Structures are given as structure tokens and as C-alpha cells.
């Protein structure tokens, strides 16, 4: 029994059917962690991107160093730091929040690069034309650069959303009951791992296929030349 749901071991089919709702509980946690982690990555990545393009080196370099550090160390280390080290300094976060934060921090390094690359890919001539027309730099950013960068940025961010979803099982090591963790516990208690693990794999496959389809749809349907302004 798990989440108040009994499993039926009378046959393999009955077992699979009975644990499905249990796995769905885990799936909800997986999706929650994905969404919260992605949201943190989006915001933190924006902050990092802004710092990395700051006019002074004093701000730029530490931001670059932090990005590099995050990217070059395993997610698990960052997770352990947040989960085991922070409490030593009196800061204890719930497991779920710790996990989502670790995902968000890890992926902010990547999203910051997506933002930067997207903005830099807008032709230099666009900034020059805006300058020649005396448009304020804030207006240039919001109405000239950003509308042209967004269609490049969004599909790339979508790919990281899929990656985050696939990294969520790492959170099981800090007791977050996401889908894979739930499957393993079912296996531990019933002695049968094949069915729950296969089902998790299948569910992941379905989710990533849907997500990839969505990313591809965005990629082909976002206006290449920018969000249009009439």
C-alpha cells in the first residue's frame, strides 16, 4: 500500500493497473518539480544573463565564473549542498523545494546562455538602425531586439524544459517522492521492479514525445523574423 492505494498482485496485469494511480501521484510531483525548477531557471537565468552583459568586469566576471561553476559540476553535488550543507548553517528547506531549487540553479546556467545567444543573434544592423533613428535604448530592447530574439529563445528554452523533466529523478535521493522514486519503493515492497520501472519509462517516453512535439511546433510556427508589430 502506498498513498493509501493497495496493489493487486494476483496477476501482472492487475498489478500494473493497480499501481498506475500510485505512479500518477509521483508523476504529479515530477511535473511540479519540473515546472517550479523551470520557473526558477527562467528567472535566475535572466538575472545571470543580465549580469554577464553588465558594463563593468567586476560584475561580469563573477557572473561568468558562477555560470561556469554551475555548468561544470554535477547536479547531484549541488543538490547535496543545498540539502545537507545549508542546514549546517541553519537553513533548512523542504525536500521538494530543495530539489526544485537545485534544478533551477543548474539550468539557470543554460538558460542564461540561451537568452544571451538569442539576443546576440539579432543582427548588429538592427541596433545601429535603432541608434541612427535615436530610439531610446530601452525602447530598442523591448521593441526591436526582444521581438526578434524571442522566436529563437523559446524553442531552446523548451528543450531545457524537457531536460529538467528528465533530471527530476535525481531528486529521489533527497527523499522527494517523484515518479521514479515511487516506482522504486513499489519495487522494494513487492519485490517486482520490472513492471513499475517499465511503466515509469513508458510514461517518460510519452511525456518527452509530447514535449518534443510541442517544441518542434513552436520552432516551426513562431515567426522567424520576429513577433510582428503593425
Amino acid at each position, binding site marked *: 500500500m502506498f498513498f493509501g492505494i493497495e496493489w493487486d498482485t494476483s496477476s501482472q496485469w492487475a498489478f500494473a493497473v493497480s499501481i498506475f494511480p500510485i505512479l500518477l501521484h509521483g508523476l504529479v510531483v515530477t511535473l511540479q518539480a519540473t515546472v517550479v525548477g523551470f520557473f526558477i531557471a527562467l528567472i535566475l537565468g535572466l538575472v545571470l544573463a543580465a549580469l554577464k552583459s553588465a558594463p563593468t568586469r567586476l560584475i561580469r566576471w563573477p557572473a561568468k565564473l558562477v555560470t561556469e561553476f554551475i555548468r561544470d559540476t554535477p547536479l547531484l553535488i549541488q543538490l547535496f549542498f543545498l540539502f545537507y550543507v545549508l542546514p549546517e548553517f541553519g537553513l533548512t528547506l523542504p525536500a521538494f523545494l530543495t530539489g526544485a531549487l537545485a534544478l533551477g540553479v543548474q539550468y539557470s546556467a543554460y538558460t542564461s546562455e540561451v537568452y544571451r545567444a538569442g539576443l546576440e543573434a539579432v543582427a548588429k544592423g538592427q541596433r545601429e538602425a535603432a541608434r541612427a533613428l535615436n530610439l531610446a535604448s530601452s525602447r530598442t530592447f523591448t521593441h526591436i531586439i526582444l*521581438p526578434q530574439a524571442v522566436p529563437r529563445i523559446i524553442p531552446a528554452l523548451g528543450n531545457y524544459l524537457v531536460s529538467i523533466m528528465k533530471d527530476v529523478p535525481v531528486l529521489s535521493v533527497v527523499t522527494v517522492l517523484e515518479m521514479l522514486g515511487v516506482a522504486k519503493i513499489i519495487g522494494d515492497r513487492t519485490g517486482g521492479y520490472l513492471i513499475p520501472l517499465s511503466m515509469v519509462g513508458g510514461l517518460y517516453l510519452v511525456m518527452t514525445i509530447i514535449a518534443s512535439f510541442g517544441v518542434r511546433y513552436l520552432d516551426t510556427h513562431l515567426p522567424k523574423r520576429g513577433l510582428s*508589430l503593425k
Partner: protein
Amino acid sequence: MNDATKTRDPIIKFDKVVKRFGDHVVLDELDFEVQRGEKVTIIGPSGSGKSTVLRILMTLEEINDGVVYVGGEPLWHQRKGDSLAPASEQHLRQMRSQLGMVFQQFNLFPHMTVLRNLTEAPVQVLGVSKAEARKRGMELLEMVGLTDQAGKYPHQLSGGQQQRVGIARALAMRPKVMLFDEPTSALDPELVGEVLNVIRTLADEHDLTMLLVTHEMHFARQVSDRICFFDQGRIKEQGKPEDIFTAPKEERTKAFLKAVLDPDD
């Protein structure tokens, strides 16, 4: 120098301007003047600093030394008592409003309709009402012969049409000086004429000052009051078009004109 340059009211003046890209000296203590209403064409081999002159005026490139004046005011500097201090962004904005630029690659805003390309800056920068900006935009489109393209996006237009929009966009800001940076170099040969025709019409407006960088020598000869031949970051020779094209004095000018006018020899 011809007579026009002796009236001492240059709208543009370069005073010993130096521009370097790394070790490469692009402008070598350049002295250069353009009078109000004058149409000047800069010719010369690539890398001679022609476009850099325009880009410095449009404040797209900073200078390393010397002073540039526009309408008698230093462009890249501000007067502080008797000395000159680097210009603030506010000063640059104020100075920039006198200049309009047409780019080789058009640089139209691809996500905006043709008309929006023409109204964006007047509305945002000059504070013109949207209705007023549209009206003026349509007038300019009429001038460049593109009223029927107002609602289209730049990519739906030919290169020649795009560049005509580029010219209209710059004019929408009512500049005193128009800078043309190789406006036809990116165009297919059959589209060059329509753009040159628009520029020719503009050249007939007496109070508009025009500074043009081009490889279209016959056109330059027709529209210019003065031709400046640039070589290695300086003006090697300048004068009336008929003098420069028929009786150049400098060997470098002769060699350059021979190469561009009779490329098959």
C-alpha cells in the same frame, strides 16, 4: 577646393580626426568639411575610411582623436568652459537628431510593417501623434513610390523597394543631413536604378545636405557638387565632379578611376 567650401558655415567639419581599429589607422588626421545644402560623394578603394566617416557622424563609431563638428557643435564632445569633454548620451541624442542614415544592408525592422518602420521613431522620439506619423509616412512612401506596400513586411519587398523604405524611414525623422552608406551595393544590378532615382530626387532639395559613399561613379558625377577621393584615411584629392572624373591630378585618383570605370582594361 571649389568656391562653395569657402563660405565658412560648414554643417559638417572633421578637424584632424583619427580613427583606429587596433593598429590599423582608418582615418589619419582627417580634415573634411561639408557645407549646408552641399551634396558630396566620397569615393575611394575599400578600406580607405569612406564608410567610417559616415559611421562616425551617425555616432556608430567613436573617434580616437580630433574633433567632429555638426552644425558648429562638437559631436563627440561637449564644451566645458574652454575645453572639450566626452559627450554624454543626452548630447549624442541631440546631435544625432540632425542626421539620417541609409545603410548598405537596409537594416529595416523585419518584424514591423513598412509603415510601422516609418512611424516607430517619429512617434517614440519626436513625440508625433500616431495619426500624424502615419500621414507623413504615407507621404514619404508616395515620394519613393511605395504607397501600395505600406502594410507589407520588409521580406515581402524586393531589395530595391526595401532600400527605398530605408530612405523614407531616415527622412521621416526630418534630418538636416542624409548619410548614404553604399546604398546600392547590396542590390541586384537591375534594382539599382530605382534607388538612385529616389536619391536623385532628394538631391534636388536645396537645403538637404547629402553625404554619399558609393561605387556608382556615373551617378556620383550627376548628383554631386563635390567629389572627395579617399585613400588611406585621408582625402587624396577633391573637387567638382567634372574635374575629378575628367582631369584628376593625383596618380592614385587616376589609377582608381581607371580601375572602376574601365574594369576590363
